[in-house]
């Protein structure tokens, strides 16, 4: 034992990261199966067939997957670094607004007012020319850059100030909440130039492809699946690296990490920015699929809901966040259609019940159950 080989998880890299991650392998397998099967049942059978999967369902799944990415982003900082952000919806919305601006420019003369240069809402407000910050958004690569820059720079500036001042715990949670609330109020204003409370909608095309067509929707769906899988693997590799262990060390004993010589602030900032980038990308995939972005995405309640997904799924596992995002959002879709007035109570009840009875979330409960069942079996084998 004393001079044995390198303990598991210490050799780094992609394969090693997934080797000890059973839940992650299952998740990636399911994701791959979904990415293969959904196009088949959506595109091949005729619409009348019982095997046909409607484009509505495909888009719904795509939307859930962007939420799952957002949940992974929150789990990375909350579950692994102990930073409870109650404002992650802001980064998601900023990514959404960035792609939304591109989609608005793609409408061109097909808007209600048919103005070749200005989006409808600007014509409505009697604006004469495009504000400076709208320039460049006709270009797709520029929009892609902004999808990363807008949430990334905000997270960098906010995180730099907050972590440098050693704001942590509940105080940090409160100011992240204030951040997203402030942005919501700002984006509600018409003179901000982001469409006020209506936001952006009535999108037509992305890169010249009709957003309503089945194939475009399928392409967006597959892109989202790839982004979700990619974010998962990226986060898992980071967690399994030595930097990932430092991040967890900061969560467990921040002062110890500091006195061993780690710049705790840099690690926190770095992981916070990465998390914001993932949230921004998720937002940019969300908007073309749901066809609308407005300031309500910045609402503090949205950001709190993300945290609830992660708590319900089981934090500190990454795949638990995905499970939580799907469970809660499926329940939301169901309740808001069947019993709209009940939904918020159901969400509250779900959160309270999970906190009381499943402190490690749904996946944590499953792991505990499997261990409990495996133990008597293993003991039985030893018996002569």
């Amino acid at each position: 034992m004393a001079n044995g080989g390198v303990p598991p998880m210490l050799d780094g890299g992609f394969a090693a990261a997934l080797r000890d991650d059973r839940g992650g392998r299952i998740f990636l397998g399911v994701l791959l199966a979904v990415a293969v099967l959904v196009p088949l049942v959506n595109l091949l059978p005729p619409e009348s067939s019982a095997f046909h999967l409607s484009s509505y369902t495909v888009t719904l799944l795509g939307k859930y997957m962007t939420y799952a990415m957002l949940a992974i982003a929150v789990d990375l900082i909350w579950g692994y670094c102990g930073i409870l952000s109650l404002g992650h919806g802001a980064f998601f919305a900023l990514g959404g607004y960035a792609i939304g601006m591109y989609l608005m420019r793609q409408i061109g003369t097909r808007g209600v007012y048919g103005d070749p240069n200005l989006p409808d809402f600007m014509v409505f407000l009697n604006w004469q020319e495009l504000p400076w910050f709208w320039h460049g958004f006709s270009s797709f690569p520029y929009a892609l850059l902004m999808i990363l820059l807008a949430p990334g720079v905000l997270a960098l500036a906010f995180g730099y100030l907050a972590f440098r001042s050693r704001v942590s715990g509940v105080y940090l949670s409160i100011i992240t909440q204030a951040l997203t609330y402030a942005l919501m109020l700002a984006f509600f204003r018409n003179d901000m130039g982001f469409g006020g409370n209506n936001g952006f909608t009535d999108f037509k095309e992305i890169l010249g492809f009709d957003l309503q067509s089945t194939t475009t929707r399928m392409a967006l769906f597959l892109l989202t699946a790839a982004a979700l899988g990619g974010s998962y693997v990226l986060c898992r590799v980071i967690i399994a690296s030595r930097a990932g262990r430092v991040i967890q060390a900061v969560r467990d004993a921040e002062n110890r990490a500091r006195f061993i010589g780690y710049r705790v602030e840099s690690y926190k900032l770095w992981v916070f920015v990465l998390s914001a980038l993932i949230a921004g990308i998720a937002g940019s995939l969300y908007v073309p699929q749901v066809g609308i972005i407005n300031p309500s995405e910045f609402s503090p309640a949205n950001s709190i809901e993300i945290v609830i997904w992660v708590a319900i799924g089981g934090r500190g596992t990454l795949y638990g966040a995905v499970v939580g995002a799907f469970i809660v959002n499926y329940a939301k879709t169901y309740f808001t259609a069947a019993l709209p007035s009940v939904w918020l109570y159901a969400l509250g009840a779900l959160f309270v019940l999970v906190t009381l009875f499943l402190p490690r979330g749904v996946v944590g409960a499953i792991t505990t159950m499997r261990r409990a069942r495996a133990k008597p079996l293993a003991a039985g084998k030893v018996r002569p």
Partner: protein
Amino acid sequence: MIRFSGRSRSERAPSAGMRAGDPNRVSATGPDATHGYILYLEDITVSFDGFRALNALTLYVDAGELRCIIGPNGAGKTTMMDVITGKTRPDQGSAWFGQQIDLLTLTEPEIAQAGIGRKFQKPTVFENLSVFENLELAMAGPKTVWKWLAARITPAQHQQIDAVLETVGLTERRLDSAGALSHGQKQWLEIGMLLMQNPEVLLVDEPVAGMTPQEVERTAELLLSLAGKHTVIVVEHDMVFVRSIARKVTVLHEGSVLAEGSIEEVQANPKVIEVYLGE
């Protein structure tokens, strides 16, 4: 007992040649009369809202010695550690690590990297990581995010971790999560984490609080074995423990040094008796 396979001592330039008995030490240092001292605290005053936690404290510690610091509650022991490790900035005074490192200009991580390791009163280890991983993260060297993302453990580092595991007696528990260790074992792991950084100076805050007698004995052996190779400064309440390890004792009272000397001298000092036993 410990084979340091990491950087050689001479690579740590500012404190090289500082150790007692090192033939280079006279030539390597300036004309200061205090050669041989590793830590200088001079005239340090720290006030919190008018309360002087440290009051013109002056303390010199020899390289390689095992020093015990005792004193009643509120004597300023923890504040003194805070000043040395950069957590608290004094209102006045100077604090030097060796001849060339001004502690008052460095941040906490910089001081840790310069070679002063601190063990907290309450054991603070990374509970969800294994014992091995705890030691791995405590290694000396640059600790930036980018380097650590791709970092893999080298055979030399592996050897160093094994050596430290041996020293602190946790070889058997290396793959267990640190949260599963007993209180005493956590304290040893934390000392091990400090050792991973090849520190010149170890600051150890109340190492035996809450330990069983066997653990106390084991801790005394551990600290005695570390003295000489490192400068060990122990802050402790437990007089029995202090007597079992101390060579030189400093008594703090109301933020300054009340007495200094061997344990016998200190215990015979009337001022110390008065402070400890009352008038």
